[in-house]
């Protein structure tokens, strides 16, 4: 009290009065409203920021549905899902979405085949085997890879990976002919092909998988590792039979995230995978993905409002549904495999 109000120290009576006064003030402060406006304002600011993400999602759904509605009035769902060809700008037009879906999954599956196992193994190395020094160098470098713009990967695929694949295939041709016993076998890889796009996407998603898997491996409690070591497990047995199963939910989540990134990847496939929608499982051929088609049409000279233009919303809607389903699958898998540690 004396410190707060040095003047009162000379007059004890006044000091006593001040003390009484401050007690009275304290009891009043129970109903004080001084902080409230700020609290309320902050609440609304935070809530608004959170709401923006929700509204955006609903906005996107609304646009996709309303814009693709005229398309589906013209083209029946049976044609959309039943036809084998996708050629909306030709005469007669074909609207078989399956060729685009096939292209998307050919590329995504190819990318997943490379990036998921490699990412997981890299994560196991970083989390279990690497020295702290090695990890401190490698993890930032890996994450740097994630920061490369995808258009760069696209050019990399088109101008580096594809020629490389062509060379490899050429040098392998005599061997292939001998093995198959067919001297007329000349496997060719097209300039635009699914494989090089897959490889580029794999390189792009690798750091994502590695980084997320490493995070989930690292949070596996030390006690669990020690328990396994104490039973006489080797480092490999601890890593593969205890740490990986314990981190399964995080690993699954990162896998699905990587695949949905691959499904949604646009720039790489637009540059390297080609523009010929078809149903094929041959990665050496030129294909077209859903995203690639949307780029082609929205950048091209298709008149707005035409049925050809509306196709991109229909394709977008399908793409959106696929990614939503994958996200839901991811959530349920994470729930199923999550182990609680305290």
């Amino acid at each position: 009290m004396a410190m707060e109000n040095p003047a009162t120290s000379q007059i004890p009576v006044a000091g006593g009065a001040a003390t009484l006064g401050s007690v009275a003030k304290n009891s009043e402060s129970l109903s004080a409203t001084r902080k409230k406006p700020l609290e309320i304002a902050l609440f609304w600011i935070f809530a608004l920021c959170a709401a923006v993400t929700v509204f955006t999602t609903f906005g996107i759904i609304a646009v996709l549905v309303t814009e693709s509605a005229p398309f589906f009035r013209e083209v029946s769902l049976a044609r959309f899902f039943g036809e084998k060809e996708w050629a909306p700008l030709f005469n007669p037009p074909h609207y078989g979405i399956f060729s685009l879906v096939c292209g998307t999954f050919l590329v995504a599956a190819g990318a997943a085949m490379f990036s998921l196992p490699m990412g997981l193994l890299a994560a196991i190395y970083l989390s279990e085997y690497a020295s702290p020094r090695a990890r401190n160098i490698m993890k930032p470098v890996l994450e740097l890879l994630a920061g490369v713009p995808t258009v760069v990967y696209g050019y990399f695929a088109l101008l580096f990976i594809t020629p490389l694949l062509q060379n490899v295939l050429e040098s392998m041709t005599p061997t292939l002919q001998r093995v198959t016993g067919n001297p007329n076998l000349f496997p060719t890889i097209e300039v635009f092909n699914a494989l090089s796009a897959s490889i580029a996407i794999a390189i792009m998603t690798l750091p994502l998988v590695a980084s997320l898997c490493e995070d989930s491996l690292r949070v596996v409690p030390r006690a669990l590792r020690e328990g396994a070591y104490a039973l006489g497990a080797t480092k490999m047995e601890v890593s593969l039979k205890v740490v990986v199963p314990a981190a399964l939910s995080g690993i699954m989540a990162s896998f699905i995230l990587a695949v949905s990134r691959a499904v949604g990847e646009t720039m790489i496939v637009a540059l390297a995978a080609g523009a010929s929608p078809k149903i094929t499982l041959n990665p050496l051929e030129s294909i077209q993905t859903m995203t690639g088609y949307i780029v082609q049409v929205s950048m091209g000279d298709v008149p707005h409002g035409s049925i050809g233009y509306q196709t991109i919303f229909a394709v977008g809607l399908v793409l959106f549904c696929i990614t939503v389903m994958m996200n839901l699958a991811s959530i349920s898998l994470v729930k199923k495999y999550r182990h609680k540690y305290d």
Partner: protein
Amino acid sequence: MNTSSISNLADKAMPEPSTRKAEAPSARNSTPQFNVAMAAAGEQNATPVIVEAEKVDLFYGTKQALKSVSIPFHQNTISALIGPSGCGKSTFLRCLNRMNDLIEGCRTEGEVTLSGENIYAKSVDTVMLRQRVGMVFQKPNPFPMAIWDNIAYGPRLRGIKNKAVLGEIVEESLRGAALWDEVKDDLKKSALGLSGGQQQRLCIARALATKPEVLLMDEPCSALDPISTLKIEELMRELRSAYTIVIVTHNMQQAARVSDTTAFFLLGELIERGASAKMFTDPSDKRTEDYITGRFG
């Protein structure tokens, strides 16, 4: 973990490791009741020494955590390590199966022998060592898998694949840890669904399944309620006839209740060691007396 571990593991891939019996001519079976007489007499050298620490110094980086600690552990006895937090008792316990190897910057000097063999020798495979010297930790750490798989984990590492053999080991180990009756119908359920006390007994069963000679327990009851604690203490007394147990505990009543001998640590040094009956009634060192009477620590 050196590369020889794999071949050693293959050598050990048999249900009953016969090599071990040859190395350690076990007095375990011949003198089951010895320790009782020993505790009464306050005698140290009643049963043969199985593990012996000789002038062990341990450093975390430059900080010395253990200063020239020497303790012999006799077969079929329970030895308690007590002392205030940070005194090095857990660190010392982890020396006995080289768990400190897993800690970066940790260096151990001196000698620890298991049946006369220096466990810090270059040729020693920690995988083999840890199968003979099992460990139970402070916090129950069941693996996130079924109860059955938790117990079978150790034997599987030794290469036992036969389901029937594994099943026998699982039952035997769970019975050994006094958990069988509670979980026999839920062996396929996740071990994480068990209570804390059950989880800890599961961890004991898991350690027993590798058929160790020595069982190290690092404050095994500190996360448990009194009833579970009593169950585990009872269990330890039963296990004594077949195993050599070293337990770190903060609970002095527990040390007095279950152990044959007690060692008191302070600031990385072994202050006093002797029969528990004497340690808790008539300690020779003033610091021990201060600690056990609660004057510090």
